[in-house]
């Protein structure tokens, strides 16, 4: 039941927000949005796909992915490292807790057959969307993190609708997820130094996080195969980030779904 005071507070908040928006629209904070794009925005837009500036462009069609994994790629690497640390911390919190498989008749747990059947369909559809978001990340909006978080929705659905015994029974165990996540992270790391390693072998110059050839380092990732734009390293970064994020979130949700009694047993050493 909605109370009168609730309505009053909601209306007054709305009036406050509206009046603030009106003041802003009158120019209280200067022209918003700014009349001109900033110089750095022009540079990014100009260089995202620019065959006439081959030493500066990223050869991707999507400027957000080009910024995230090429122009400021090192920042994104450290963001991935932060995510890695957070997952490590959650694994450490649950140290010693085993995700049990022993429950019999686990298939009778969970929601109704109607919900289960609908969810089975989404087990195919959602990963497909996620894979297309990841593999097209350099062409259309999207990327590795987006795709990874979309794919994790499947994990959450499986845990909630089919019970927490469903995923470990079907081979998605914590340790396996950890393995795939580490493979994804190693992929991100290797992609960032791949050009450097190749240059060491060939005896030329190279940079960390190099995508396309620069003025004094001639090596570059393939920009296109036939007519298909690859975006150089961006495709690989998106793919490996997708794997790392999807399995990182999977670990968190597998651990969160462990029942409290099992965790308590380990924590109090009974």
């Amino acid at each position: 039941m909605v109370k009168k005071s609730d309505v009053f507070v909601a209306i007054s908040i709305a009036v406050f927000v509206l009046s603030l928006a009106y003041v802003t629209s009158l120019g209280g904070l200067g022209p918003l949005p700014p009349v001109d794009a900033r110089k750095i925005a022009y540079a990014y837009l100009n260089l995202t796909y620019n065959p006439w500036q081959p030493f500066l462009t990223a050869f991707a069609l999507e400027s957000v992915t080009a910024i995230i994994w090429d122009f400021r790629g090192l920042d994104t690497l450290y963001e991935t490292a932060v995510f890695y640390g957070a997952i490590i911390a959650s694994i450490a919190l649950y140290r010693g807790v085993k995700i049990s498989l022993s429950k019999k008749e686990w298939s009778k747990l969970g929601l109704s057959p109607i919900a289960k059947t609908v969810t089975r369909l989404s087990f195919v559809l959602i990963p497909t969307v996620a894979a297309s978001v990841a593999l097209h990340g350099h062409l259309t909006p999207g990327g590795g993190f987006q795709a990874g978080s979309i794919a994790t929705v499947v994990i959450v659905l499986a845990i909630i609708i089919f019970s927490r015994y469903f995923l470990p029974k079907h081979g998605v165990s914590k340790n396996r997820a950890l393995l795939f996540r580490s493979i994804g992270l190693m992929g991100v790391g290797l992609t960032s130094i791949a050009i450097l390693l190749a240059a060491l072998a060939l005896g030329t110059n190279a940079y960390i996080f190099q995508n396309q050839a620069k003025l004094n380092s001639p090596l570059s990732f393939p920009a296109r195969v036939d007519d298909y734009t690859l975006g150089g390293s961006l495709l690989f970064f998106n793919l490996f980030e997708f794997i790392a994020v999807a399995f990182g979130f999977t670990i968190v949700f597998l651990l969160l779904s462990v029942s409290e009694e099992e965790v308590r047993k380990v924590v109090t050493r009974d």
Partner: protein
Amino acid sequence: MLEIFTLSLLTLFALTSVVAAYLAIRERDLVKAIVYSAIQSSMYALIYYVLMAPDIVLVYIPVSVGLIPAVLLFVVKKTERYEGE
């Protein structure tokens, strides 16, 4: 005309999100509060879409409507459902 349409859409989404945020804070049943919070987040996702930030929309919808409510529901299940005085 298009500008006015965009701005009125933005206003609508923003106001709905404000109301949902207020209801989420006031609600004592935490499960309902999570649902209100998810409504607020989906309004934010629509705002991002109108402001032409599809990359953010793609990450905002699964994280704020799917994963964060899921984490919060797990937490509510492990603690208590109703907020005390």
